[in-house]
């Protein structure tokens, strides 16, 4: 990576889940990751409905954000898989199709933007799983997560479609596991590991509920005992955390796996005090996990 990074915080995290942004900023500070605030950027825009309604609207709004990065002379760092999917797809699409880029620029030029196709887009998992960052992380761990058994949820948009995302294996990804292992945690293999959270299947509530129930039921039955499900996307985090309670009530099953954001676990291991993180700010409280961390 040659350029500085512009910090693209998105909307869902800063507006609805600011405690996740706080955890990430703490991690970035400790690791000495230099970020520049991106001012005046909009929603990435959200990949599910905008892309469905009108491809040109989706791409043009995305290209405006990429153009702002270009003007600042930075590449983009995202902390949400939705932003990652949109911005990376738009950047690849416009890099490969110069005619389309021309069409999009014709619109952007009218509001004084121009995108030449040079902005690169990264997700923080992509960054921190690089060997140099892993070494740095390992050297700065002050509270190893030795006692924790963690299940990783990659989510779909972080790794697929691989011809666009181009960083981890699309069906057998390992980058989040590698980061958690660098923090000392044990990560678990399980059958539903690669299943979608169902957040984007908006028309039928039952799809999401079934997917969440299947995954959480399996995790509850794992012999090792799961201390938490770790995700890197605000949609996945919200989906599992909210639906888990609803399903438990409906089905009478005892589902009690807390869902945490990767940056929160990194912050803990890198020495951020638990009271400065909002680990209890979710439906399923990570009480057992906190107990293990404080004992």
């Amino acid at each position, binding site marked *: 990576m040659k350029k500085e990074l512009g910090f693209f915080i998105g909307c869902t995290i800063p507006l609805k889940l600011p405690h996740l942004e*706080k955890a990430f900023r703490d991690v970035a500070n400790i690791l000495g990751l230099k970020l520049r605030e991106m001012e005046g950027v909009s929603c990435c825009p959200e990949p599910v409905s905008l892309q469905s309604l009108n491809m040109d609207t989706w791409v043009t709004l995305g290209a405006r954000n990429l153009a702002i990065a270009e003007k600042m002379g930075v590449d983009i760092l995202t902390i949400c898989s939705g932003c990652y999917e949109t911005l990376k797809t738009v950047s690849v699409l416009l890099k490969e199709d110069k005619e389309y880029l021309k069409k999009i620029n014709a619109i952007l030029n009218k509001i004084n933007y121009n995108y030449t196709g040079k902005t690169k887009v990264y997700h923080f998992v992509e960054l921190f799983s690089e060997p140099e960052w892993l070494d740095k992380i390992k050297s700065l761990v002050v509270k190893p997560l030795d006692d924790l058994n963690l299940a990783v949820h990659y989510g779909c948009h972080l790794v697929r479609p691989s011809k666009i995302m181009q960083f981890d294996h699309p069906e057998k990804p390992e980058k989040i596991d590698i980061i958690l292992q660098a923090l000392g945690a044990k990560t678990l293999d399980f059958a539903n590991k690669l299943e979608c959270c169902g957040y984007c299947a908006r028309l039928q509530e039952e799809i999401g509920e079934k997917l969440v129930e299947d995954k959480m039921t399996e995790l509850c039955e794992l012999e090792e005992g799961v201390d938490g499900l770790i995700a890197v996307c605000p949609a996945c985090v919200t989906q599992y955390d909210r639906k888990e309670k609803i399903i438990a009530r409906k089905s009478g099953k005892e589902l009690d796996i807390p869902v945490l954001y990767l940056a929160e676990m990194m912050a803990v291991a890198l020495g951020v005090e638990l009271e400065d993180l909002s680990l209890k700010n979710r439906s399923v409280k990570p009480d057992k996990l906190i107990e293990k961390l404080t004992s």
Partner: protein
Amino acid sequence: MTEMLKKNADNLDHSFRYEISAKVGAKSLLKCIQCGVCSSGCTVTEYVDLQPHRVVASCLLGLKEEVLSSNAIWTCSLCHRCTERCPKNVDYSFILALLRNLAVKEGKIPKEYSSTVVTIYNNGYVVPYTGGLKDNIDRRRGKMGLPELVPPDLKEIQFIIEETGLGALAKEREDDK
């Protein structure tokens, strides 16, 4: 099971396949060999009226109305496994997005999808950020020591939405937001 559909060749839309494949990134539609790998790995395969390989077959056959009225094009969870696994590199999830775009042009839009553009049109964000809501968000961020948000110039966002053809939808629904 889907009901048996009988249609005369005259009533098929033979140009439909090209209407799709002419779009950026959708040429791959024409390469489908109907192997069904997309459908076997599809997250929502039990919930759709047309499975992915049948959506593609219907596009190739020219069953435009059937495809654009199916629940299949909107039920997708966007997991991209179809695209990932296709041995002929048919980009199904992208083609599906284009099919939704075509359905939208015909006014077939589930409300779960149309409300997002209204929120972005009015806030620049996918989460409402005006009035009391904005104050609450700002206060919460302030308490955590997070920097102030500098939102986009709404005029620019609205211009893009209007210029690319979603202005009417964004404004039409403004009243019932």
